[in-house]
């Protein structure tokens, strides 16, 4: 189970923005900007149970990626808690990294290595023994149908093949939770389907999956619950049916647009 409680993250603004902000009237300032700081995430809380797929929604710049980067330990929260199966992620990120599988549209493979070398490398970095690694590679490669291109260099693969290899890299160490940040962005229908099928298979294995996307039809198809983040705060957290009922049309798209259009007043 994943629990995110009152998560906050702020970054220092660059000097140019600070100077520009000084000239602006208060009404024109981004509510997340505060003096020299930009509060990218402000009090975000949600949870994801075992076997549940949680859809993370929000417009560009809402704070989704920052939240997921904190969850994956790439960034350290300014404040707040992240608990995975009862253990604090922030307190011991090195140990927790072994329990998290993170895949995003921007994370990639080493293109001068073969798929097998890539997956072996990450398995070894996660401390797997050679024996365990080889047996896991066999299983994962079969599951994702990778054997035919396992010994090809990553830069010679099609986008779909790369995504399958990326998934193998993400799950090779058998993580307890899966975090996916816009993994289908920029992919064609077939490549995106590979990711969606993968999420579906993990849903059945009882592993919690957090899935951030802009594609609402994917959320509708896969997710049990949704969390909507806008301007760094949680706007909605609940079952997908409850989310739809926020609009008279019972349509995800309409609810999304309605909620993110309600701009915060500084």
């Amino acid at each position, binding site marked *: 189970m994943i629990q995110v409680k009152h998560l906050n993250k702020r970054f220092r603004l660059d000097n140019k923005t600070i100077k520009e902000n000084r000239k602006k009237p208060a009404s024109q300032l981004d509510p997340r900007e505060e003096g020299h700081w930009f509060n990218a995430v402000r009090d975000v809380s949600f949870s994801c149970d075992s076997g549940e797929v949680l859809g993370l929604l929000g417009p560009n710049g809402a704070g989704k990626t920052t939240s997921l980067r904190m969850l994956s330990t790439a960034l350290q929260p300014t404040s707040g808690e992240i608990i995975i199966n009862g253990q604090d992620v922030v307190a011991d990120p090195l140990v927790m*990294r072994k329990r998290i599988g993170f895949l995003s549209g921007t994370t990639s493979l080493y293109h001068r290595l073969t798929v097998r070398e890539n997956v072996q490398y990450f398995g070894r970095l996660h401390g797997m023994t050679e024996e365990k690694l080889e047996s896991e590679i066999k299983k994962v490669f079969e599951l994702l149908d990778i054997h035919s291109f396992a010994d090809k260099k990553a830069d010679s693969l099609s986008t779909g093949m790369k995504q399958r290899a990326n998934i193998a890299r993400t799950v090779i160490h058998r993580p307890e939770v899966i975090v996916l940040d816009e993994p289908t962005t920029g992919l064609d229908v077939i490549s995106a389907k590979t990711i969606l099928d993968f999420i579906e298979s993990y849903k059945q294995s009882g592993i919690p999956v957090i899935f951030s996307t802009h594609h609402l039809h994917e959320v509708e198809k896969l997710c049990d619950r949704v969390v909507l983040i806008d301007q760094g705060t949680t706007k909605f957290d609940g079952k997908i049916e409850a989310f739809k009922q926020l609009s008279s049309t019972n349509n995800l798209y309409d609810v999304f647009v309605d909620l993110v259009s309600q701009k915060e007043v500084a």
Partner: protein
Amino acid sequence: MLKVYFKELLELTRDKKTLIFTILLPTLIMPVIMLGFGALSAKIAKKAVEEQLSYAIIGEENYSELANLLKSNETITLKELSTETDAESAIKNEEIRFAVKIPEDTRQRIEQGLSVEIELFYNDSSTTSGIIYRRVEKILESLDEQLSNSRMSLLGLTTEQRAGLIEPLKIKKVTTANKRESLGEKIGGFLPYILILLGLTGAMYPAIDLGVGEKERGTLETLLLTPIPRFQIVFAKFLVIFTTSFLAVFFSLISFALMITIFGPMMFSAMSAGGNEAITSLLNTFASISLVDVLLMFLMLVPTAAIFASLLLSVSIYARTFKEAQNYMSPIMMISIFPLILALLPGVKLDWVWASVPLTNVALAIKEIFKGTIDYQMLLVIFGSTSLVAGALLYLCSWWFQREQVLFRN
């Protein structure tokens, strides 16, 4: 950490650009610079010496002995021109290479025992023009000597007295420096200049690839999410860059050593058919550099390569894009060249003041090792201080690498 190190190294060896810039170029650059330029300049000089030159004589009738002497030489061909203007124009148009003007009063002045000024017209903007002057001077040497001897005989002077008359005081150079020391002073400064710059360029491409290259390709974030402490990741990357930098220097030194001991003598003896004394002496001086000296030079280059590796990795990690990183490389190159140029300046010698200037101290130390005059106490201090600078930069690089503002600057 070693897993990251060996993976990065494996990836780099699969990259043609790295192999070219790190291995091939440094290995070839020394022989190409030294043998290539040496062979080319020798060839040009040889051609200039052996070339059949066309010329003109102005005022042949004023002293026919001189004109006949020129005409009797088979390496030059006379072209009939009557005036000085015609000769000058022919030199400009490259119809002739030189002209000799014999003044009207030549015979009269020679008979009176006076000196005569023979004018040599030639284009001295040409790189081989000095050779023309020396060739004409040599042709006229016999006439000059003949005239001088006859005048000395009239005065009743012996050959020795004649030498004393021409040069009453003669200074003979007796150097206390041996050949190696003397050569080291003259050209020893260029060796560290080339070696240190090779170390820098050898580290440059891998640093960009392992820092911002990984950022751009999206593999850095993946690596940061593995259970490897960040200081270990940065240290592994540092070690890879250090290795490539050091290998670049190592291969260039190896090729330099091979050039001196094997290819150099072979090539020059083939070129000059029997061997050129000056070049043989030069090569012998190089060959007198012992293995210990070469190892000491390597020792000095170890912390230098570490400085470059830390510095370049920090810059590369900071950059947002590959292009931005490349833009930062030019100022680093210029900043690195400046202390190396200082070491080349006349009068700059290795003392305790210069020993405290980073890079200049290493360049001066290598020069002193080359000359065979290194103060080992000072060498130890330079090694220690350079290692300290490298350590501090590596610490800063590690701190830098752990900053979210740097890693996720995009």
